């Protein structure tokens, strides 16, 4: 199958750049480590938070804020490094069907981020619960309602963040520009933005901005003012799909 052959090639491309695998492993370590620290800090105030204390969410979110930068960056680089080096012309010469090449990139990078995202999610959840329990706060287990969905969902968020990087990388082709946009889209606008924006706009961003909506999948405490878990993830996935469709359309029509 030509599609599988092209995916195998994309995996070879990914693993044969010496920095990629170490960066990916370091990202998993940072997510678990920073997740542990935030879980430890937050669980000391668990009493004050009361029913709003979300043990699953808090064990992953702190680490994810750091991890998502390099997940998005790796997605960008999977594409822009080919443009920067001229490798894209060689790649398109051996795979002239452009849709197949980009699809192989999307699937391969999607699978890589899925596997590593789940490792990071379950790792930071399990270590985080130990910290929470040690501080005498209510830790949860994977058997509790919504917890498995939240932890598994965090891995899916990794995939979407990575693919947003791939899509923006295709559209912009330049590493610096694409990385800047990815950081703006997934970090600056949704995390820092609401504090600087007018109230109504900030509230809108908090509810509907793709990554904010998507991260609802990782929460176990319902919040009536925000989207339901799967609705939120669906919104983020739909936005990512639209971005990728645009990337495919541009990639097909542009001279390489």
């Amino acid at each position: 199958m030509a599609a599988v052959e092209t995916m195998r090639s994309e995996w070879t491309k990914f693993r044969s750049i010496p920095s990629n695998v170490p960066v990916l492993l370091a990202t998993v370590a940072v997510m678990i480590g920073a997740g542990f620290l935030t879980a430890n800090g937050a669980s000391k105030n668990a009493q004050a938070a009361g029913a709003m204390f979300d043990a699953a969410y808090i064990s992953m979110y702190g680490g994810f804020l750091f991890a998502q930068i390099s997940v998005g960056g790796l997605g960008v680089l999977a594409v822009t490094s080919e443009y920067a080096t001229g490798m894209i012309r060689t790649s398109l010469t051996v795979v002239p069907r452009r849709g197949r090449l980009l699809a192989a990139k999307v699937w391969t990078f999607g699978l890589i981020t899925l596997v590593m995202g789940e490792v990071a999610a379950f790792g930071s959840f399990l270590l985080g619960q130990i910290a929470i329990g040690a501080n005498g706060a209510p830790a949860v287990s994977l058997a509790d309602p919504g917890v498995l969905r939240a932890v598994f969902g965090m891995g899916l968020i990794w995939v979407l963040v990575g693919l947003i990087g791939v899509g923006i990388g295709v559209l912009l082709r330049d590493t610096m520009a694409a990385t800047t946009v990815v950081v703006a889209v997934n970090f600056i606008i949704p995390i820092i933005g609401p504090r600087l924006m007018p109230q109504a706009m900030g509230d809108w961003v908090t509810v509907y901005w793709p990554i904010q909506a998507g991260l609802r999948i990782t929460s176990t405490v319902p919040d009536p003012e925000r989207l339901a878990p799967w609705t939120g993830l669906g919104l983020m996935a739909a936005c990512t799909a639209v971005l990728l469709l645009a990337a495919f359309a541009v990639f097909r029509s542009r001279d390489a």
Partner: protein
Amino acid sequence: MIEITGLTKRFGAKTAVDDLTFSVEPGRVTGFLGPNGAGKSTTMRMILGLDRPDAGTVTVNGHDYVGLARPMHEVGALLDARAVHKSRTARDHLLCLAQTNAIPARRVDEVLELVGLASVARKRAGSFSLGMGQRLGIAVALLGDPKVLLFDEPVNGLDPEGIKWIRELMRGLAAENRTVLVSSHLMSEVAQTADHLVVIGKGRLIADIGIGEFVRQGSNVLVRADDAERLVPRLVEAGGTVQSGTDGSFIVTGLEARRIGEEALAAGVVLTELTPQRSLEQAYMDLTRDSVEFQASVA
């Protein structure tokens, strides 16, 4: 066999390739010549589907390149040897390309051996010299054992030994009845390798001609001889065109200096001067003078 019909490519207001029609036959090396900016690389990129023509068609062995599922088995190309991720090893570079066309890893090692890079197969491509990079690019072209090969300026940066190697490689590939198209902006580079020439300037076809004919058309030789009356008929008979010059000299067109010398020897005529006036390079420059994109002005 590559067939190009009415091929046109515009970049904004500039027409890079202008209604170009020619075909590249198997079993011989076709030199693709033109000054810098003549449209050679753009033409090659269109053959490979990297650029989309604004008009016209290109087929490779009767197929549209972009439609080929595993093109490396049909066409091998060296476009830009520096188009390599610098931190990837030579072997991984070849392997990731081979995998897209279901070419086994064994073939990667074979090709590395063939181009003389086996000993540096696990070195990063970024550490390679220009010549080694060129060999790596050629290795990519050879991976699928294709019937059609395109080389864009393959001798750039090669040392004399490397140049000799690639000439022999191209001759060998043509001898195996493959189609070989090699571009250059220097006549001298292809003169010794090509059997056929396609010359373009400003995107237009200037000449599509056998190398022998080009040489014949291209050479003027100034001759002085003690007994011109006996020599001239022999030269005409040998295929030359003779024009009388002033002061007893004459200009021979269509015969190489050596051939004229041989005729003089056979006739027992003493030559007092035998001066080739136009080299192949000169003939090529005359041909493309009007279509040079960037020309230094004579101050």
